[in-house]
């Protein structure tokens, strides 16, 4: 039992980590980013390349990968997405446009990775060391990813609720038009949120590359997982993201241990659908309209 709970928590932490960037991009910047998983895989490739080519510790590599991804995302938002934001008449229109544009972006990023790395699987071992905790054995690299996701999640949650900038970001998330009225620069705040999401997804990519096998075409799996966690937790809510991720991870581990590993994903989706039926806006989301 402790074992299932521990592995579930660790797995859930990873899900939350994967999803946190998207909750900012989707919740605040209103970009339904279908190329999200591709950016995650790109960061994983970067960490792999730094580790195998330059012997750079993937954790240290994050110091390079995360800022680069922040910059790239900021540039992307400025160059590609701002025109869409400007021409969109309402939220629905922006959603449609962002789905179409990021769908194209997904192909581009994937195409670049295919050209650079080919379609083969990649994997390496880093910190795959057994750690004894509460009488159970866990992998150190997964534990680190879990720890970081909790720390980052809570830190960002506090930053969003306790600082001026964070309040501005939340205001944009709730109502971009009203935010404008109180002298918040919506476009700049959105760009910042999108770039912050880009930084988070890079961190997630770098961390999961330590223990998951990936290939240039495996991004879409992560986009989907992230979308599910984000919506279940409530779009734009980091705490919701964390709780939803942990719930999914726990349910997966418990079902695998006590019922049937074959049903894990089905139960995950059922849980997700169930939450949405009871709380259509997600666990921590506020109802719209």
């Amino acid at each position, binding site marked *: 039992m402790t074992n299932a709970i521990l*592995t579930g928590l660790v797995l859930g932490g*990873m899900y939350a980590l994967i999803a946190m960037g998207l909750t900012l991009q989707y919740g605040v910047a209103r970009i339904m980013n279908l190329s999200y998983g591709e950016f995650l895989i790109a960061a994983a490739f970067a960490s792999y390349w730094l580790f195998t080519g330059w012997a750079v510790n993937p954790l240290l590599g994050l110091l390079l990968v995360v800022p680069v991804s922040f910059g790239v995302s900021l540039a992307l938002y400025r160059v590609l997405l701002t025109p869409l934001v400007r021409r969109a008449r309402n939220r629905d229109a922006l959603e449609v446009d962002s789905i179409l544009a990021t769908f194209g972006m997904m192909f581009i990023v994937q195409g670049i990775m295919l050209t650079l790395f080919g379609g*083969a699987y*990649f994997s390496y071992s880093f910190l*795959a*060391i057994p750690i004894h905790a509460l009488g159970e054995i866990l992998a150190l690299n997964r534990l680190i990813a879990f720890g970081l996701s909790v720390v980052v999640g809570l830190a960002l949650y506090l930053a969003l609720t306790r600082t001026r900038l964070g309040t501005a970001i939340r205001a944009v998330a709730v109502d971009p038009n009203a935010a404008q009225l109180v002298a918040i620069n919506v476009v700049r705040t959105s760009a910042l949120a999108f770039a912050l999401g880009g930084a988070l997804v890079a961190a997630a990519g770098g961390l999961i590359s330590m223990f998951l*096998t990936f290939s240039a*075409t495996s991004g879409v*799996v992560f986009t989907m997982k992230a979308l599910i966690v984000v919506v279940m937790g409530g779009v734009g809510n980091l705490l919701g993201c964390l709780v939803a991720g942990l719930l999914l991870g726990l349910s997966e581990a418990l079902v695998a241990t006590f019922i049937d590993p074959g049903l894990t*994903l089905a139960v995950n989706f059922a849980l997700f659908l169930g939450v949405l039926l009871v709380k259509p806006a997600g666990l921590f989301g506020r109802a719209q309209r």
Partner: protein
Amino acid sequence: MVSSITRLAAGLLALAGAAATSLSGTAQAQTSVKIGYAISRTGPGAGGVAVTTLPNYEMWVKEVNAAGGLKLGDKRVPIEVVEYDDRSSAEEAARALERLITQDKVDFILPPWGTGLNLAIGPILNKAGYPHLAATAVTDRAPELAKRWPNSFWLLGTSAGAANTLVELLVKLRGEGKIGDTVAMVSIADGFGIDLSGAARPALTKARFKLVYDKSYPVGTQDLSPIINDVKGLNPDVFIAFSYPPDTLGITEQSRIAGFNPKIFYTGVGTAFPLFKQKFGANAEGVMGIGGWSGDSPAIKDYLARHKASAKGAEPDRWASAVTYASLQMLQQAIERVGKIDRAAVIKDLQTGTFDTVIGKVKMENNMPTRFWWVGQWQDGEFYGVGPSTNEGARAPILPKPAWKAM
């Protein structure tokens, strides 16, 4: 604004026109042998194609053309390649093949990667009378399909063959007193895992093994530790995982971390990948898996060296890669024996002839080879075939599997 719209419309029209002309293709005089293939450059199948299929196709074409081409009668004719991306979808694969046949009018077609796609295109190749050398499909229906489509050859065998060979090996080892009779088995909930576990289950029961764990997990499971922890608690002598590459790596890593070290540790697709050795290094030692090859044979050693030279240092996998390359050699030998582009005669020759390939002499019976490697084991950095033990070049398995080393 309007002019930009008209320009765009004109551009789209031009694009459509270009598509139409490229679709129609042009007829060519027989100065080359056109060989076409549609493989998964993208999508879930891309990982398998990149390791097993594409490097071998490219290397074979390069080698044949470097030698002047295929020998048709007394002259050599170079190969011209037409390639499409099937995006890992059955519908795309079917359409790409129809295009190869009717538009590009290719002389021969090389098959896609994977069981599902090979089955999906079977009827098309059969109807058009092209030889179909399925080198990456494992299906129990293979004998029946070979009857239904006499142009199809199933070079990787049946899942029953894989499962029975494994169980035979286990029975033998138990007879020698090297292992007990508890077995834990997990399988991926996909065609491959279900077929193999479906065949292994009755075989194990019949051989009076105790199946202490028998579960499947869905494709895309990202953490297999609950399964490994459960299995570890049961302490079986034999652990069998009919898994796909990402899970094969995940299961092995997790077992090492959890210190789960049964006497026999067997994993599925991916064990034979060079990536496995690269990731686990010395810890690969003693791990068994599906596939294997006669690592000591000069033909295989030569093939390995040529593959590395051709594919920028990448090594082939130790199962379907060599079979894929052998299928190309068989096709080449059949074409050259016939001496002209006569697909019916080539099919006939494939059915009856004997072929000299990197995996040894191959003579097919009922459109299937008579000899397969089903169980391999990592020994000193090479994945040697250990089962069936009657195969030429079979090594004796190392038992029990050595303990995991700290990394």
